[in-house]
């Protein structure tokens, strides 16, 4: 790999980690905080990665752990409306539909949201997710199934039809 440095890692995977943190928290400000912590930790304590994929897996796992810890410390505000000023600075635009989905994701327990993100967005397979999260493959499969079911249930309550 090219570089073990945290700067390299941020340039390559900064958006990925931000998305992962967002997928688990539903809050952009919190996602930024977590992203910052992950890369600053790597900067303070460099790791020896075998490959970019290894680096990415480490970053995701660290981010997921931090999301988990933040929730436990009750500092999370899952349903924080997106700050308008902040939203204006983002290089994206959230539609009302986006906000609805974001709120649904944020309401998912963390154990589901992390697996859903890794599976659907990052397209890791069950085995890879198990390795990242330090869980057994059976647990990951079970989490994925329940997470999907829970998400579907939440959306159906709102009148959405979950299309596979």
């Amino acid at each position: 790999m090219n570089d073990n440095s945290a700067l390299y890692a941020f340039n390559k995977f900064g958006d990925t980690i931000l998305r992962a943190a967002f997928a688990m928290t539903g809050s952009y400000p919190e996602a930024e905080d977590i992203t910052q912590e992950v890369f600053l930790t790597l900067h303070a304590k460099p790791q020896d990665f075998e490959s970019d994929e290894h680096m990415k897996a480490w970053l995701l796992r660290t981010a997921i752990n931090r999301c988990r810890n933040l929730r436990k410390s009750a500092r999370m505000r899952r349903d924080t409306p997106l700050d308008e000023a902040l939203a204006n600075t983002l290089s994206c635009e959230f539609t009302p539909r986006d906000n609805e989905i974001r709120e649904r994701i944020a309401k998912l327990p963390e154990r589901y949201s992390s697996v859903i993100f890794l599976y659907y967005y990052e397209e890791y397979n069950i085995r890879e997710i198990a390795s990242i999260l330090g869980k057994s493959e059976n647990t990951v499969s079970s989490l994925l199934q329940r997470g999907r079911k829970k998400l579907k249930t939440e959306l159906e309550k709102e009148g959405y039809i979950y299309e596979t």
Partner: protein
Amino acid sequence: MRPNEYDDLLKKIRCSDDFRSRMQEKLSAEPSVEPEFEEIISDRVEVITPKRRWGRIAAAAAAFVIIGGAAGGTAYHFSKVNSDNVITDKDGNKFVDDGSIYAALRKNKDSYFMKSLYVNGGEVVTMSLGDEFYDYMDNNESSEVSEDEFNDSKESVVFYFTPMAVDDGQNSFLLSDEDPESYDFRFEIYDNGCYKWNEKTEDSERVSYHRFENGEDAYNYFLSIQLSGAITYVLTKTENNSLIDDLMGSRDMYSAYLTAEDENNTLIFQSLELDTSSFFRYLDEYTENDEDRFKELMPGEYQPGGCSLTIEFYDEEKEKTNYSYTGANPTYNYKFKLYDNSCFILTSNIGGKERAAYYRFETPAFIDILSLYAEDDIVERLNKMGRDASKTEILSAFNEDYNGESAKFRKDSGQFTGDTNVTVSDFDGLKDELASLEWVTCDVSDENIYKDFYIAGAIIGRNGYIYSQSGGTHYFAYKLKNDSDIETFREILDSHFTENSEETSIYSKLIADKESYTVDLSDDIKKKDIDKDRLFEYLDNYDMSSEIGPGEFVPSDKIITVFFRKIGEADKKYSYVGANEKYAYKLVIYDSGAFTWTENDNGKYKLTMHSFADDGKVYQDILDMFAE
């Protein structure tokens, strides 16, 4: 929501320009020193080389020095590092074997499980291989300190390391009977980053004190390991647990009462302060060899029966209202309602949340459980005959120890005439075919059960009956629900049961090789020359094979004993009374009409009992033929 909407939303999430700019600036600068670490080193001079995972260890070997302040206190972790004591494990990870307690564990980490006891409203004990633990310990700086320098604090995380007892390849599983606090190694870290190791061997114990330079972060890391394990356990245990498992797991938490009703919902029996130990023992025995024996029924499979019994479990500390069957009842936490067809519904009402699940016992559990608490007259009263029997009940009627290969058939027309050996083919197929017919319960004293029946793990009567022989007391048998099924039933039996041929009887064996034998009568009879052909010709007029039981055998004082010996056998001298008798077959005929065959197969004797039912005619005929 379509999956691509989820994707589309996340793709919109990107680092803002401002955030990116700030991060690049920070990551280009030197990393900041942790405050805790500055406190620790306030009175010491330290030279620290750049820290990298493996590179750190090598560099520290060359240049890492701590000048200790407190006498006899400050130890240093890496001063013992040299190229000789750096170990590479089988995964390629490196650690320092510096004689520390951690090194002693780390060298043999693959032989240990890491246990954690998490207590928060209930104990959760988790076990894992500890990969995350070792990863952190190998890659993060810490210093050994003296006991005086060691500060514990209010909160801590503890991990115990015990030798592996089971190798099942799983990463984590729940402890059952082990003391969760037993260990060879014990690691406890406090929220200020101080941690200590305890090591126990057969002969000694030792303890060492340490401190992570990134104290709070280190504590949080280990806390997250513990919580992650606990969450995984809670997730997989409680969400995978069926309702019946929940009930069995909380048996000591509730008081209970039982009511039993007949098919008209009339209360027949109740027990207000139920001792549930018998009930749970029944469930334990039911699941003893198969933890998953309870399987939830699909809605269409569940069929409430006639009579029922209900056990309600309620919180003991909750104030009980006066119980009256028609009045207000305490709010239950679990309600177990079992019908006499073995179907039951289990309902829970905990924390305002209701759940229900449907199951079916494979045993006649209604009578079994009712019998634990009610007197026999109540049990008999509620043990209704004529209810439909489930397919599972029929399949379960057969003794599980039965080998399914041979059976006996007893033809009984009011008088026992003997058992016939029968060969069984495809016993599992036989059970399935029988279970596919419709059956109802019937009284065990029904005499028709014992007419023309097979004994094959259960009593199977050709008149359409099955009487379970699967152990325990059976309060009922089963009979065909529809008379029209009797022919089908018999065809099933005939296709699986084959009576053994007569060649297998003792007389059949003798006849098959009769030329090889001499014939002698017992010494006490004066004999003419014995014409064995004449004897065999005479005996062939009678049924020499059908056996009778001991209850039908009627001996008498007058007997004739006929010996059949292999031609050429030496030493034919014998005394009738008490001496060795060398024979291959012996026929004893009583003047009562009874007779026995004995086969001597190289010292192994087999005896069968029979009857001519002739009031002694054969006895007399034999005497007339061969006695002087």
